[in-house]
């Protein structure tokens, strides 16, 4: 294909202009580019990715230049944006939403000298495509523990976005750890079928509260569920999601899961600078600092707080895996035998509830 060579040569030329192509000998200067699915002001998913990008400049100063684009729809537009970024001399491009999976791989084929990093996907069709994700379920385990200890009604809730493995994993982890400390606990799941619709998220939280739920975890991006919980004058607690949501401390926000992409971004760009960059499939969590547990506030009794922090430290030290057997599936069949640890493959394709959760995953 004539066109492809042309593009590749152009890219190579630009790469050289920016301080050498991304080969083993390292680079003097890296241009890192980011494609965002939402606005950087969403205070959730995209906001956290952008914080990670800003951390690059903080760490490497003049050696790194960043460029980004917000609100890129996941389809035809993504492919064009990626190509234009590649042509503009980006050395590494982070595509931060699942829907960019195919465009990332398509464009990566045309620019073999540019590194592509796709968040939350699983396709690495070319040697210059890496994928990365975070083990959010580790944070859910700690939330589940707090929820099981704190609930007075024995009803806890979870606001799900879409019934995909990542969310199902979070629900299972949350429920298992609540159940472990409180055998009477019941879980209600509400599917909002959106990642971001503050009013609908508030309605979801309200529906859960009206059903007697007094601890809410959410897998959508806004602070609306916390704001709804705040209206109950302390009767209902919840957790920050994606960002710390510290405005709602000390209650209803008693803790949070913070998506911290900075360590990964700093590591990867650093590797590009010193020439040690390789293709990876990264799935990091609490140990690597990619999933952070926001401060557990004084609204949680000291002993519960200490237990939760101990669990966090055990996960960080690698001595505890949130999915450790015996765990049965919802239908009663055995998933993990005594002492067995869930293989990553099972988790990444998780499409079942664990034993004890009522209801079905929408099909």
């Amino acid at each position: 294909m004539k066109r492809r060579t042309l593009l590749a040569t152009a890219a190579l030329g630009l790469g050289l202009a920016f301080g050498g192509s991304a080969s083993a000998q390292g680079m003097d200067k890296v241009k890192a580019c980011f494609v965002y699915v939402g606005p950087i002001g969403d205070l959730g998913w995209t906001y956290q990715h952008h914080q990670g990008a800003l951390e690059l400049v903080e760490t490497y100063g003049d050696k790194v230049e960043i460029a980004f684009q917000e609100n890129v729809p996941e389809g035809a537009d993504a492919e064009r944006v990626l190509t234009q970024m590649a042509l503009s001399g980006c050395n590494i491009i982070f595509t931060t939403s699942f829907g960019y999976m195919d465009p990332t791989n398509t464009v990566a084929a045309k620019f073999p000298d540019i590194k592509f990093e796709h968040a939350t996907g699983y396709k690495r069709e070319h040697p210059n495509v890496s994928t990365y994700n975070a083990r959010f379920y580790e944070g859910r385990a700690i939330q589940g523990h707090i929820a099981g200890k704190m609930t007075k009604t024995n009803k806890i809730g979870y606001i799900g976005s879409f019934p995909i493995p990542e969310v199902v994993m979070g629900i299972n982890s949350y429920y298992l750890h609540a159940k472990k400390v409180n055998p009477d606990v019941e879980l209600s799941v509400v599917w909002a079928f959106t990642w971001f619709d503050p009013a609908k998220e508030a309605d979801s939280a309200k529906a859960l509260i009206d059903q007697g739920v007094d601890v809410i975890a959410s897998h959508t991006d806004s602070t609306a569920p916390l704001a709804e919980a705040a209206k109950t004058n302390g009767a209902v607690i919840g957790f920050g999601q994606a960002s710390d949501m510290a405005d709602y401390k000390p209650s209803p926000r008693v803790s949070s899961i913070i998506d911290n992409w900075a360590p990964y971004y700093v590591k990867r760009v650093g590797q590009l600078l010193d020439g040690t960059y390789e293709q990876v499939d990264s799935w990091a969590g609490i140990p690597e600092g990619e999933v952070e547990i926001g401060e557990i506030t004084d609204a949680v009794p000291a002993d519960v707080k200490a237990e939760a922090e101990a669990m966090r430290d055990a996960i960080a030290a690698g001595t505890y895996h949130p999915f450790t057997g015996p765990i049965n599936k919802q239908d009663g069949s055995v998933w993990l035998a005594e002492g067995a640890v869930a293989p990553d493959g099972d988790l990444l394709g998780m499409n079942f509830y664990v034993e004890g959760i009522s209801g079905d995953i929408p099909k």
Partner: protein
Amino acid sequence: MIRLEKRPSPSRFWQGATPVLAVVLTMIAGGLMFAALGKNPFDAIRTIFWDPLFHPQFASYSRPQLLVKAAPLILIAIGLSLGFRAGIWNIGAEGQYIMGALLGAGVGLAFYPADLWFIFPLMVVAGAFGGWVWAMIPAILRTRFNTNEILVSLLMVYIAENILSSMSLGLLRNPEGGGFPGSRNLSQYPAASNPEMIAGTGMHWGVIAALMAVIAAYVLLQRHILGFHIKLAGQAPRAARYAGVNPTGLVLLCMGISGALAGLAGLFEVAGPAGRISIDFNVGYGFTAIIVAFLGRLNPIGILLAGLLMALTYIGGELAQFMLGLPAAAIQAFQGMLLFFLLAVDLLSNYRIRLGYKKEAI
């Protein structure tokens, strides 16, 4: 006292000059906004309007992309303009676009993984059919029950969006997609895909269909009795009836054509640039096309140019975002301004501005 006097027929001079005037006005107002945001306004304007066409690094890629981005807008706008001319208001093209894509992709995926020559042509038919059916609902409700088609076609968009999300979570979900919502990628299924035909030109079947639609609409309006009927029905409905125009037939025809073209646009998009059905597959082309139709003064050639101009602001806006760090919101506001000015200066082609008091009516 300033007052307006309607011209007997639109001024040819101003019809040509107003878009240029509007772009200049937008550059001034937009430049002020960019300056207020602390960016160099000249750089910003150049990046939006000039770089996608002539920048040494991007232009060879961006220029053909203009066609790719403009094609669905033009295809839908052409269909809508026929109805708008006849006073038939289909503003639900977004829904017809979705249904065309769903039905077309559904037909293609039903054959997966067979490799038969007729799959893609069948998808094209299915896509047009899907859009046509969705447009027929408001059309028939209007002709049978006199229900307002503006409102019904708009409501049908919401229903289509719900069907889309249901399909991408259910029936059309990729069985090998790890449980994620969204269909298989049609661009990786050669029998059902709509690829770039000559590498580097951006040409795909959707672009060809858009160009054909422009020509066909031009011929129809200039040379064909149907085109005359459409224009007559819009300008003088009563006269049209005396001239033997069947209003029911005209509604069905105009809604049908616009629905089928919107459906086709959806099909070419899902099989080509977008690749797959997903929950947020639709990105507002159906609504933007309404604006394109009006910017093009409901004239086929005008729509072609308006579609390209819209595409230019999209692609230039993207460049401005990551080259200059302009926020996406500023680009959106800039596009809004461009539309405001284009709509505002249109006054000059239809009306004369007079100073002084109104004469007594004769």
